[in-house]
C-alpha cells in the first residue's frame, strides 16, 4: 500500500517536469534495487548567480545558548540568503524532466545533516527516497529535530547529547521537507526528497554539478527558500557536458 502512494507521489513529482521525452537508454530490463548501473557518464555543471544587493540576514537572539552564540562573535545571523561575489548558495537543484525511466542508482554515500553551533549544516540538502538520512548532533546540548512534511510522515525526536545520530528514510518525493528545532526556534533546514539521484545544492561559490546522466535534454528546477523556484532546460551533448546558469535577483 505504501508502494502505491510512492507511485502516486512519483507521478506527481516527475509528471510536472514533463518527464519521459527522452527514450530510456538501456534501462528497460528489471534491475535489482541493490546495484543499479549508472544511466550515463555525462555531467551538468551549473552556477547560480545573484544580481542586486543581497538583503542583510536577520540577527538571531542566541542568548539562551551562550555556548553557541560565542561561535559567531556574539552576532549570529540566520543564513537565509548566502551570496558571495554575486553567487547564491543553498539553492536546491534537481532534474524534473527528460530523465530516462528508472530504476536509478542510489548515491554511494548516505546524506548527513549536522547540528552544530545551534544551526543546521547543511541548511539545504537533498536525499533520494529510500536513502538513510543521517541526523547528527555535534552540540553538547539538547536539540529536537522536527520534520514537518505533508507527503511523507513527519517525526519529532530529541538529541540531548553530542554524538547522537538518528537515521531517517523518506519514502515519497517532496520538495521541500522543513526541519526545525523547537528548543531553538531559529534553527531551520530544508530537505529535498527526490526519487532519483539527479539533484545538487549550490555551494558557497554558487556552483553545483549533477553527474551520471546520458546525453540528452533535461529540465532542471532550482529552489531557494526565499526566492522560490526557477526552471531551465539544459542539454548534455555528445561530449558528456552540459552547462547551465540560474539567475536570481534581489527582490
Amino acid at each position, binding site marked *: 500500500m*505504501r508502494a502505491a502512494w510512492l507511485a502516486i507521489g512519483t507521478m506527481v513529482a516527475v509528471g510536472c517536469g514533463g518527464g519521459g521525452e527522452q527514450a530510456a537508454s538501456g534501462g528497460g530490463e528489471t534491475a535489482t534495487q541493490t546495484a543499479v548501473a549508472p544511466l550515463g557518464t555525462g555531467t551538468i555543471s551549473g552556477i547560480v548567480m545573484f544580481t542586486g544587493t543581497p538583503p542583510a540576514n536577520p540577527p538571531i537572539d542566541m542568548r539562551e545558548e551562550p555556548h553557541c552564540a560565542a561561535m559567531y562573535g556574539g552576532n549570529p545571523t540566520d543564513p537565509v540568503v548566502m551570496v558571495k561575489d554575486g553567487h547564491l548558495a543553498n539553492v536546491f537543484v534537481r532534474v524534473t524532466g527528460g530523465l530516462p525511466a528508472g530504476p536509478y542508482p542510489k548515491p554511494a554515500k548516505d546524506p548527513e545533516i549536522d547540528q552544530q553551533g545551534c544551526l543546521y549544516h547543511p541548511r539545504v540538502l537533498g536525499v533520494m527516497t529510500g536513502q538513510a538520512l543521517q541526523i547528527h548532533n555535534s552540540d553538547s546540548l539538547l536539540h529536537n529535530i522536527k520534520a514537518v512534511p*505533508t507527503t511523507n*510522515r513527519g*517525526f519529532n525526536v530529541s538529541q*540531548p547529547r553530542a554524538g547522537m545520530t538518528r537515521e531517517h528514510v523518506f519514502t515519497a518525493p517532496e520538495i521541500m521537507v522543513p526541519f526545525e528545532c523547537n528548543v531553538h526556534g531559529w534553527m531551520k533546514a530544508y530537505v529535498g526528497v527526490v526519487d532519483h539521484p539527479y539533484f545538487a545544492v549550490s555551494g558557497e561559490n554558487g556552483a553545483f554539478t549533477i553527474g551520471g546522466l546520458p546525453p540528452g535534454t533535461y529540465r532542471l528546477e532550482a529552489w531557494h527558500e526565499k526566492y522560490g523556484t526557477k526552471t531551465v532546460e539544459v542539454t548534455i551533448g555528445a561530449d558528456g557536458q552540459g552547462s547551465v546558469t540560474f539567475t536570481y535577483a534581489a527582490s
Partner: protein
Amino acid sequence: MSRRRVGVALLALAWSVSLAVLGPLQAQDLTRGKAVYDRWCAGCHGETGAGDGEAMTYMLPRPRDFRRAVYQVRTTATGGLPTDADLMRVVDEGMPGTTMPGWRTRLSEAERRDVVAHIKSFSRFFEGENPTPLAFGKAPRLTAEGLVEGERWYRELECFKCHGDAGRGDGPSAPTLTDDWNQPIRAADLTRGWNFNGGASVEQIYRRLRTGLDGTPMPSFSDAVEGEILTEEQLWRVAQWVHSLSPERPPVREVIRAPRLDGALPSGPEDSAWAAIPPAWVPLVGQIVIKPRWFAPRVDGLWVRAAHDGQTLAVLVAWSDPSRSPDATWQEWIDGVAGAMTDADGPVPTTQGPDRLHVQVPLRPPEGLERPYFLGGDPRRPTYQWQWTSAPDAVREGRGTGLGAFTASATTTVQHAAVFADGEWRVQFARALAPADTAAAPAFPVGEAVPMAFYAADGSDGEDERRGAVSAWYAIYLDVPTPPRVYVAPVLAVLVTAGLGGLVVVRAQRRARST
C-alpha cells in the same frame, strides 16, 4: 433570574440542548460515521476534516486538521499513525486542557467506532496500515531516591528549556513555540497534570515521553533510551517526578478557610508560615459571556490561602503565569496569539498589558443567595474589588458594577506584596477586618461566609480586562470550624469546555434546520 444565572444557564443550555436535540440522522446515504461526524465534530474540525470549523479562531490549540493524520496521543513511535485503540481512547476521554470534549457518555460505543473510522478516512496515510504500539514496560516502584533521580534527568535532558525550572511552562524557548500549523502552542504547565492532553497518570506521562506529542514541539525521548543515554527506568523516574508536581485532583472547595492565627500574620508572599495553611484551588474559566469572549485563557486556576488575626485579613493568591508581563521576550508569543485569534470578537491586542488579578466581594452583604453578577457586579449589586496589576505593581481598590466598570476609591486601605518566580505569581493582600469607610468597603465578619470571586489575566497572552479568566462565586470564611455548605461548587468549570462544543454544535444544528 439574575444575569449571573442567565450566563451560567446559557452555557448549560448550550450543551444540554445539543444533547437533547439528537433528532433523526439526516441523509440515508451517509455512512453512520460521517453522520456522527457532521453532527458532533464538524463544528470544530470542519466539514472536510481540515480543522477549520466555524469556531476555530476562538480556540488555542485549534481543532485538529485530520488530513495529515498527525496525532498527539499515541502508543506508537513518533511519526507513526495512532492505533484504533489510541483514537478511541482520545475520543472517549477528550483532551483535557483543550476544548476537545470527551464523548464516552455522549455517543454510543458504535457511534464512537464509526466516527473514528470516518476520521481516518480523511487521510490516505491510514490506507492498509496497521500501526503497532511500542513496548513500554512497567513503572518501577516509587521511591524518594527515584524522584530525585527523575528530577536530575529532567534537568539533564533539558526539559526545562521548554517547561521551565519548576515545570510551569516558562522555559526560555516557551515564547517561541509553534505547532505544525504554525499556531502558537504553550509548553505544558507540568504542575497542572489534569490538563495533560493524554492523561496525567505516570504511565500516560511515560508514554508521551517515549512517543512525543506529534504535531507539537514536544519530542520523543525514545532515542535517548535506545542510545543508552539513560535507562528505561530512569525515564520512568522522569515521568514519576513530573507526576509528583501536581496533586492528583485539585482540592476544589467552595469555601476558602481563613484560620485565626494567634501570632503574627504571614509577613509576605514568601513567608513560610503560609505553608501551614491548606490552599483552596479556585478553577478559572475563559470569560465567554461578554464580548470580546476568551475561550483560551492562560490562567486555569488559583491557589488561595487566607488567615486572620482578629484585626486583619491576609489573602495569598498564587498562580502559574510563565511571563512577568510586559516582557519583551514574550512579544513573539503575543503576536502569534493575536494572529491566531484574528477573527474572534475583534482584534487581540499586540501590545502587552500587565498581568492582572482581581479579587471581589459584594459591596453590601448579600440577602439570601442573591449575589452580584459574577462578572464584576452589576449596578444594583456592586462589588468591592482589589484590582492588582503587575506593571505598575499596584492595587486599586474600589467599586465594580460590571466587567471593566470600576471606580477606584480615593484612598487605598488594602496592602499588598507581589513576588514573581519560576513562572508563578504570589500576591498577598491584607486589609483590616473593619473597613475605614463603611460606604466604600464591606467588613470581613468573623464567622460568616463572604462571597468571593476572582479574575486573572496574562498580559503577554493578549489578555486584558475582558479577555481573561473568571471564577464563579466562592466564599471566604473567617475562623469557624464547620463551614456552611451554601455555596454550590462551580458548575462553570465543567460547563465551559462542554459549553463551547455545545454552542458550536447547536449553532450548526440551527443552521442545518434553517436550510
